[in-house]
């Protein structure tokens, strides 16, 4: 009998507690920045596409919902010709973000992706690419990679010596 009354009392006390429920959608939840929501492709500090189409995100994806094709601009800079994520399959595990060597693919705190038609959940590059660096600022993959691209020749990356003069006999 006592335990019954005690339970009722405790439940009654909850009526005076601070509200945890958020009046969504009128009120938006404040999500942590590391929330794994909608996936975006970001740009490097110079405004270039960060994605170099290395296929690591696609390989890491446990549901295989990322498909892309690599291509190159005339200067040798690699980028995805198309980049497609099938969000109707995505489980938002974030493995793609972990796998990405260039910080291009990022999961952002946005989960409002509901659609009536499943086909609309297929996002192409134009839907994914944002005009910013996303969560990770300041990183530019091509500044540390050895590959020469337009505007960055051999030996001009960070921590790189100038190209070797193969005719030199100096030690």
């Amino acid at each position, binding site marked *: 009998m006592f335990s019954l009354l005690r339970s009722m009392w405790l439940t009654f006390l909850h009526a005076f507690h601070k509200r945890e429920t958020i009046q969504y959608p009128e009120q938006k939840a404040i999500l942590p920045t590391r929330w794994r929501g909608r996936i975006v492709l970001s740009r490097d500090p110079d405004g270039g596409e960060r994605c170099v189409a290395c296929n690591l995100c696609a390989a890491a994806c446990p*549901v295989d919902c990322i498909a892309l094709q690599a291509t190159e601009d005339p200067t040798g800079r690699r980028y995805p010709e198309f980049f497609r994520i099938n969000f109707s399959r995505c489980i938002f595990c974030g493995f793609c973000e972990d796998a990405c*060597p*260039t910080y291009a693919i990022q999961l952002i705190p946005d989960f409002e992706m509901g659609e009536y038609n499943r086909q609309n959940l297929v996002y192409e590059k134009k839907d994914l690419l944002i005009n910013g660096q996303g969560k990770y600022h300041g990183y530019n993959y091509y500044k540390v*990679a050895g590959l020469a691209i337009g505007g960055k020749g051999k030996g001009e990356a960070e921590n790189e010596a100038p190209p070797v003069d193969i005719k030199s006999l100096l030690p």
Partner: protein
Amino acid sequence: MATIYIDDKPYEVPTGKNLLEACLTLGKDLPYFCWHPAMGSIGACRQCAVKVYKDENDTKGKLFMSCMEQVRDGMRISIADMEAKEFRAHVIGWLMTNHPHDCAVCDEGGSCHLQDMTVMTGHNYRAFRFDKRTYINQYLGPFINHEMNRCIQCYRCVRYYKDYAGGKDLDVFAAHNHLYFGRHQDGVLESEFSGNLVEVCPTGVFTDKTLKQHYTRKWDLTMAPSVCHHCSLGCNITAGERYGSLRNITNRYNGEVNGYFLCDRGRFGYEHVNHVGRIRKPLVRAKLPEATDKLTALQAAAAAFRTGSVIGIGSPRASLESNFMLKTLVGEDNFYQGISDTEHDLVCLALKILNEGAARTPSLREVEQADAVFILGEDLINTAPMLALAVRQSVRKQPALEHISKANIPVWQDAAVRELMQDEMGPLFIATIHDTKLDEIATHTYHDSPDAIARLGFAVANFIHADFPEVKGLNEDEIQLARQIADSLMAAKKPLVISGTHCGSERVLMATANITNALAAKEKEAGIVLTLPECNSMGLAMLGGHKLESAFEAILNNYADTVIILENDLYRRANAGMVTNFLKTAKNVLVLDHLHNATTEEADILLAAGTFAEADGTLINNEGRAQRFFQVYPTSEDLQESWRWLGELGTLLAHDRISHWHGFDDILQAMVKEMPEFKGIDAVAPGTDFRIAGQKIPRAPHRFSGRTAMLANINVNEPKPPVDPDAPLSYTMEGYRGQPPSSIIPFFWAPGWNSSQATNKYQQEVGGHLKGGDPGLRLIKPDTSHTAPYTQTVPQKFQPLEGHLYMLPLHHIFGSEELSMHSPPIVERAPEPYVLLNEEDAIQMKLQKGQSLSFTIEGQVYQLPVKISPIIRSGTAGMPAGLPGIPYAELPAWATLNRELKWKQQPQTTY
């Protein structure tokens, strides 16, 4: 056999090998870079260190490079020893100090030996804080991309390119830590085997430029075991596909045939599959393309078939099954081989020689073991490139075997062996119509007309065995040369004579047969290799069929009015006028092909045939080896194998036999039943219902990505995975994960070994045969009882004809083959049309290099720029064979010079 103890466990290993080979054969994971099974050890990279102990009481041990240490009985070593492990991790740490942060944009990534070895050693953190070394890259031509920053200085590229393949324009430059592997200046790599650098290089310095155009990681490719369609040798290849287009060709190891390497035509000639000129759906001339589908096309074909009397023209570039199906459909009497009459005679003669001669055709691996080689009339680099590479090895190895036994050095000690041998080469004699790239390693070369080559061959046979016909009227030099060749062949243990159809002379083939028969009569274990024009020339010859000219006659004389042409551009087989006349006269022309060409233009009904990547089939190579190739990726029903089109046509016509065949296996079984020469061909690869643990073999690696997204743009609901009705392979990543039988290995992969080096895990012994035997079945058995002269007729000396030139075919590795010339990088390497004249003839005709020469062959007028050579025989001239832009002529043939007719207006084709 010797017993060695690895980490205190005893193992039986063969003696004479090095420790690294022994460990890898035992399935141990031991990292290495500079060692390559085809090239031996030099101990340059220090990566394969192991601990070697004096005896069981020795606890300290010493570090040894396992690739430099011979297996000794009772040896005690440790791979897992901490010091050895740390040493290996350190070595890779050093190699990586300058390696760029490139993997994401590197084409090697995912199939990179350096990646695999780095993971294997456990090196995962870069301790080096200083700047990385960089290099300027070079342009190396349309095949190979150069990214020198990634180099780890293992020297494999130059050892392969210079020592193994005999290239001259790739070398190592500079000194100390500035080593540079490249050319002396930007430029196209000259070697015809440069593509192998992609697989030889353990990292991404040399990568496939054609793959770069449509880059796909190895793990994303759908791959199938295939056979190269670009020459008669039948090298094994792995073809990879992604998003419906063929992405690359890599080597598929076959211990008997191609080993670790491919030629550039085979590796980069695949783009015809992705060509814009592909026929992708059936077409009927009377109907709009939109209104034509598979059924209407088949019905139109059946209607034409019912009303007319039909003949079929086969093709040496179509699979055996397709040719057999056509032969069955039209009947044996109405089946014609779609090759020129000269070629028909030559191929039939070659088959006859192989069937009736005493000599056996060695496989390419056996060619490498030959200790005296005589080549008659074949420019091997251009007609059978991998055979040229094998001959190069035989010349390199022959003196080595002799010296090594004396010097007590193991064969795999590459640097020591090379030091010992210097420039010594084994006996190689080359008799050709013009100079070849192999001439530089030949003991003696002889350049003359085909008849003179044949006469030399007959003289050699006569010197070997006196019962063989004597050649009269040879000059002193020729007699001496013939005697020298005969002596070398007699002195050898495994003499080898190579000839083929490419100089267009039956007499050369007969001379070859005489030499091998003479050697057999002297109880020598002689080998004979005859190269053939195309990938399935041998299969077509074994299948039989009439000459093409009689097909023309059948139509022109109204014996038949409907013709089915199987994967064949007749304008490459006969005179253009004749073919046009033939196709115009025929009431219905039904063509099956995969690329639009002059013949398909004339077709009334055009059926879209699958290329090698979209079809299953069997090819028979020049040694009579039947090899199965598998479809790489599924296609829509509008595009299917020729044999399937013909089978469906047969079913529609209620053909009494064809309508009972359901699927690929039934065709093979019917073929075996009807033609005893194909006995066993149904067992070349496991049948359709073959399963391991109830599962098919997957064509895609287990990391294959994007399955639920690659087609989501069309429909978000994924389609059912396509089913392969013809092969025990599945199109997806699902299936048996272990090692499949050797004939159906879609790709080489082993845990921790993502690069092509995983081949080690599939071999019985590293560098040896594949587990379960190398794929392919040899159908031709020599008849050792035949030791009599093949012929007694010796040809007369070649006599030049006033006002004429004896036009000989000159073959080009890039240019002469039909399909590869649809590949842009191959086209880039192909020569411009030309006619090759003798120096003296050119002076006499007052012609200089680049000026055009006009001549007529069988009514076809040519006007080609002149190239001048001191080597080609006066009175003869050479013209590139099969080069697009030069109208077809059946070569060799007498060309009439048109110099006097210059003023006359006549239809001319100028180039």
